[in-house]
């Protein structure tokens, strides 16, 4: 049993009793932390406001014997206010929170995942970009050892052929002879390569376009194949 200090992004919260909440935080050093925050649903609770999902916090927690830790204090690093006040950005952010929640494990630190989520939310807060969430999905796939093969046909291995399809069950892009899964345009393939090969800054400044939509669809589906689960937030219909 011990006190610990960490920072992290609040992923979700569920009600507990009359005034408490169980919050899930993706932390830097303690992996995914599930902890009880007492009294936070009383109106005007500053502690409670800081533990709303989509908040970057530093906190003091108490790890007891049971599954659930207890939260004692929280300070705000960022509330991502511009994300909260724009439906498109909020939808993108919620999908990233859902992915992070699925990938992270309790008490198993993946500092890179925390940094990628904090960075992606920060980028989204700076300016609207349709590429933040798709790029985050692709980066997380790579972090989890499932980066799609994009420089040659994943099936026959040839690099001197045009790649025309994409299928994450196969593990990446496919040539005309081996094609299956979804068709992919050269422009989308280019964005995905740049995302994974050091060109992220350029990708994030891509304006909304048909190619951006194409990459978003491919990245979402690839993540769903990887998680073996539907991403609820990407399919909830919250963007009319």
């Amino acid at each position, binding site marked *: 049993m011990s006190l610990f200090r960490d920072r992290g992004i609040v992923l979700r919260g569920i009600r507990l009793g009359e005034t408490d909440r169980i919050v899930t935080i993706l932390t830097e050093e303690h992996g995914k932390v599930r902890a009880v925050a007492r009294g936070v649903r009383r109106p005007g*609770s500053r502690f409670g406001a*800081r533990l709303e999902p*989509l908040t970057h916090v530093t906190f003091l927690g108490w790890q007891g014997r049971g599954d659930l830790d207890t939260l004692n204090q929280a300070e*705000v690093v960022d509330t991502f206010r511009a994300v909260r006040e724009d439906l498109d950005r*909020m939808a993108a952010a919620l999908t990233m929170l859902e992915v992070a929640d699925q990938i992270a494990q309790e008490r198993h630190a993946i500092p890179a995942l925390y940094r990628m989520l904090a960075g992606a939310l920060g980028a989204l807060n700076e300016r609207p970009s349709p590429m933040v969430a798709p790029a985050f999905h692709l980066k997380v796939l790579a972090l989890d050892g499932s980066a799609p093969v994009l420089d040659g046909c994943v099936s026959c291995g040839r690099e001197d052929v045009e790649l025309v399809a994409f299928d994450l069950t196969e593990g990446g892009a496919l040539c005309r002879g081996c094609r299956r899964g979804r068709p992919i345009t050269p422009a989308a393939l280019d964005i995905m390569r740049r995302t994974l090969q050091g060109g992220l800054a350029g990708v994030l400044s891509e304006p909304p376009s048909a190619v951006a939509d194409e990459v978003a669809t491919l990245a979402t589906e690839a993540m769903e194949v990887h998680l073996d689960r539907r991403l609820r937030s990407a399919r909830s219909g*919250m963007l009319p």
Partner: protein
Amino acid sequence: MPAFSGPLQALVDELGRLPGVGPKSAQRIAFYLLKVPGPDALRLADAITAVKERMTLCTRCFNVAEGELCAICLDDRRDSTVVCVVEDPRDIVAVEKTGEFAGRYHVLQGALNPIEGVGPDQLRVRELLARVDAEGLTEIILCTNPNLEGEATAMYLARLLNPLGLTVTRIASGLPVGGDLEYADELTLGRALEGRRTVEA
């Protein structure tokens, strides 16, 4: 292995299903009901039966109602062109207590929670859109909770409603009366600053 015999255990089990009631509280309430005079306990049973038999949801606004329409929808002194959208019937009680609103309501029966799989189809959104023309609405006030789900719901509805040419407003978020500024959270204080008003003196 049940701790008590027959009906008493059944009561403890049922009470334990209630929101916010743990096993210990369920036992305490069950023993209390066992002890009080018959008529007192039966009044509770009757109240539950009456609510289940007589109360339904208003077919227009989805507030609780004792018939087809709720008391507010039946009150023809209220402004029928302004609708305040809330998540839950209990929110109507809160707004009514302010005495500041004389229009009608629309209860969504929840808020968008995409990560938990609650999308627009799980809420009374289609019914709200249908009311715009049918009732000649001129203003809709989005009165969902000031949390992530409530904000998402308000933005979603604003995007659907704005093109329809009526006034769509969102309640301001501010500081609680009687609270100390130094104890306010950052998001609330930031928004309160943004929503400042000139002071007439």
